[in-house]
């Protein structure tokens, strides 16, 4: 531990404590107080996470900032935290987006403000826990617990069909998680510990590996989400409030991909190789087919939701190519998609707050009344279609490079996204933003205010910076990626 205090614990528990504080402000009479405490909590949450970046040793793939204390001695469970070059980026992304969401929900949320803000803060801490946990039970606890605030967020502040979406979201995810629990219990009896890092060394027969891989697949594929278990995502996104959509797209989906990296691949490397074709096929279906589905959407949020599935297909494709380009490309794509999809949902939220419609046909000519907004939206739309110079390009390009090395046709199929992605994003952009002013609603739109500008600007900077100079990111993940590839190359049978 470089610092005198348990840094990761602070990163996890500080937002949760602030969440409880916000909750304690009670009913909506104290809404301003709740907002300010939430802002303070989110800001502090981001600030305490920054030392992770500064103090991180980029040379090693070993876990850093490790905390290890006995927790449930009956089952040899430890409170074991630590991060590597992969999880640190996701934690920082999460802390950043918590701040974004708190600011974005500042005025929009009018009923039960304290509960809204508290849900996000608590969820932020729990997600940090997911990324930092090195003990399987600890991981599982954070993993499941984060469903509860999300369930509440979708169900309470969501759209008209929110109950259906919330239940679908919860039950889908729970099914996968429970099967993962069975796999974890099995691994516990094989290895006698719940330490995830111990599992990496554990020899397992092919059959066992395949069953474990399938159980993990059920848990993580639902979260990513991969075709064909993706159907909860459009429902959840459409019904969730803007903040919920942003966190879902930017963070929650990454948790699934992170699971593949932390569990499936290093614990069951032989099964990963054996079943890579399935993963690649499902990823390509997601990229191509879901990309086409996105093209036909009339609802903006649904369109971005399908676009998310398609982009996450790139992530899983990159992971299961088993080479450095694919892996690093997948990770960069995860981060980039976090920024871009989060930003797009915020843009849609901006429009929705004013017009209360997500239908593309209800808009047209928004550029005439909201020029600043249109400019930001343009940048994010371009990033979503993978324009060079934006973050969207870097990850996709690297994954494509990795794919070419493995099989030309993989790359060919995946590259169609460059066309479809541009088609659905820009077509939507054209219909919403350009053209003559469509109706009175659009005519009376006011442009984004200072608070919204601040959020958009910070995201725009992130998208551009990452597109132009991704080196700091790939540098930090480099050692861990190589280590993962070494684990993948070594047979455990």
């Amino acid at each position: 531990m470089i610092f005198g205090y348990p840094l990761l614990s602070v990163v996890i528990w500080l937002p949760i404590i602030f969440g409880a504080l916000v909750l304690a402000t009670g009913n909506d009479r104290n809404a301003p107080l709740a907002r300010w405490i939430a802002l303070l909590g989110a800001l502090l949450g981001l600030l305490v996470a920054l030392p992770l970046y500064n103090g991180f040793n980029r040379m090693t793939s070993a876990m850093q900032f490790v905390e290890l204390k006995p927790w449930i001695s009956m089952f040899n469970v430890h409170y074991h935290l630590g991060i590597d070059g992969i999880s640190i980026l996701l934690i920082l992304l999460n802390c950043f987006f918590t701040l974004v969401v708190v600011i974005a929900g500042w005025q929009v949320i009018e009923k039960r403000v304290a509960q809204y803000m508290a849900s996000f803060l608590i969820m932020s801490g729990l997600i940090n826990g997911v990324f930092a946990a090195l003990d399987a039970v600890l991981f599982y606890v954070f993993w499941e617990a984060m469903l509860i605030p999300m369930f509440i967020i979708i169900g309470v502040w969501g759209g008209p069909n929110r109950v259906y979406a919330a239940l679908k979201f919860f039950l889908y995810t729970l099914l996968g998680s429970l099967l993962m629990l069975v796999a974890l219990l099995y691994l516990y009896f094989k290895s006698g510990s719940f330490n995830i890092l111990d599992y990496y060394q554990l020899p397992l027969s092919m059959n066992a590996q395949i069953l474990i891989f399938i159980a993990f697949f059920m848990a993580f594929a639902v979260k990513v989400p991969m075709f064909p278990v993706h159907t909860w995502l459009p429902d959840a996104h459409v019904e969730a409030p803007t903040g919920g959509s942003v966190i879902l797209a930017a963070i929650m989906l990454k948790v699934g991909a992170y699971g593949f990296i932390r569990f499936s691949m290093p614990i069951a490397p032989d099964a990963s190789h054996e079943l890579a074709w399935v993963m690649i096929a499902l990823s390509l279906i997601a990229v191509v087919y879901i990309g086409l589905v996105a093209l036909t959407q009339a609802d903006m949020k649904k369109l971005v939701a399908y676009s998310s599935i398609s982009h996450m297909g790139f992530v899983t494709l990159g992971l299961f190519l088993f080479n450095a380009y694919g892996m690093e490309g997948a990770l960069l794509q995860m981060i980039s998609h976090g920024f871009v999809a989060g930003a797009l949902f915020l843009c849609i939220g901006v429009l929705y707050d004013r017009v209360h419609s997500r239908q593309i046909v209800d808009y047209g000519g928004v550029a005439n009344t909201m020029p600043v907004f249109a400019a930001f939206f343009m940048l994010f739309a371009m990033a979503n279609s993978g324009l060079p110079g934006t973050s969207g390009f870097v990850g996709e390009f690297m994954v494509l490079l990795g794919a070419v090395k493995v099989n030309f046709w993989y790359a060919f199929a995946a590259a169609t996204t460059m066309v479809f992605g541009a088609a659905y994003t820009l077509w939507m952009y054209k219909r919403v933003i350009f053209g003559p002013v469509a109706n009175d609603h659009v005519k009376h739109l006011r442009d984004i205010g200072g608070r919204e500008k601040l959020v958009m600007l910070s995201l725009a900077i992130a998208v551009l910076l990452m597109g132009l100079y991704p080196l700091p990111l790939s540098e930090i993940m480099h050692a861990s990626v190589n280590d993962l590839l070494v684990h993948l190359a070594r047979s455990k049978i």
Partner: protein
Amino acid sequence: MSYIATLLPAYAEIFLLVMIGVILIADLFMPGYTRTVTYLLAQLTLLGCSLITVGTHTEGIAHLFNGMFVDDLMSDVLKLLTYLAVSMMLVYSRSYLMVRGLFTGEFLGLTLLATLGMMVMISASNFVVLYIGLEIQALSLYAMVALQRDSAVASESAMKYFVLGAMASGFLLYGMSMIYGGTGSLDIHAISAAIEHGQANTTLLVFGLAFLVAGLAFKLGVAPFHMWVPDVYHGAPTAMTLLIGSAPKLAAFAFVMRILVESLQPLMIHWSGMLMVLAVLSMAIGNITAIAQTNIKRMFAYSTIAHMGFMLVGVLSGTLDGYGGAMFYAIAYVLMTLGGFGMIMLLSREGFEADKIDDFKGLNQRSPWLAFMMLILMFSMAGVPPTIGFYAKFSVLSAAVQTGHITLVVMAVLFSLIGAFYYLRIVKLMYFDAPESHEKLYLQPDTALLVSINSLAILLIGILPNALMTVCAASVQQSLLLH
């Protein structure tokens, strides 16, 4: 050593019996609406029992009455939790019963008598003593369900409870007589020794075992012997439902342990198969049927069936970890049931039972704190961390995985997924729906406080489960390895 001193291990039971007499007599002279004196006396009695149980605790195992009565760590732990559960039940039900005119001396007397029955069951080391304990408990409970004599529903459910309970007792007695015929003893350790030495006819034993398991299944309320559970839970006044649903499950767990594990361990290959059928059926019927319920008491009844099935998964894995896990499960279940029914009684008032699930609609808008407490309870019952319900499922499942029952575990997991749906529905009603009435909630402060403590305990043990798990494991270990 005087004779009185040799009775040390049974002091708590003797004290309780004396106090029941005192309370019943005191009640004659101090009638009245609130019964403050006798109520406090009953609470003090339970406190006294806990002090005695703690005070008479010894490191080893103490036997009494020619080995018919045993005092070990498991019995002490289960008894203490029984006192706790009964005492909480009294707090929860006091005002509920008062406004319904049911807070009578008989109620207090019968509650304590049922407690005595449970204590005897927990400490029994002989089939006859087990049976006596069971009957003391069961007869008190039959009478309690019927206490609301003007209510047709309550009388009907008392009748059902009595008839089916009597039949189950008959099964048990028949099974016990078979085992006695086979082994020539009623002492649980003598029986296990006789079977191990191969002195008994296996056909006869398995025949008796089948009846014992059927009787146990009746008492636990696991499918396909569960028919009485929903009707009794629904029909009885909520306070009685709470008593039936909570502490007796601890006694029933002890019963299962003493009969199946301590005395019939050599027949495990036979009974673990039977329990597996019961467990799977219970989890299936309980979880699926609960979805269709509109009355929350009936829903809890079916959820109990499912929970008991889950507990049996731990027992049938047949390892110390499994028994410890099942004990942890029983304790977790009792805590959750207390909270759940406590919440129903808290929201009820004169002339109004909060027992429709729609009564929970919009609770978050009427009382965010109570909604949050109920949220914890529901997620705990669904087995979502960080609550005690998760570790209950976790410890049971881990034992089953260890013994290679992977198919069973996957089934258990799938059924608990189905179960999650109806618990989530309550959360949905509380948080997502608008309230049906905006009437102010009149909350009894003592009940509200205890419900909060109860729910927070579920969360707290969920975050730090190690202590309770260790206690459970140690109790089971001592009872089984050291006798």
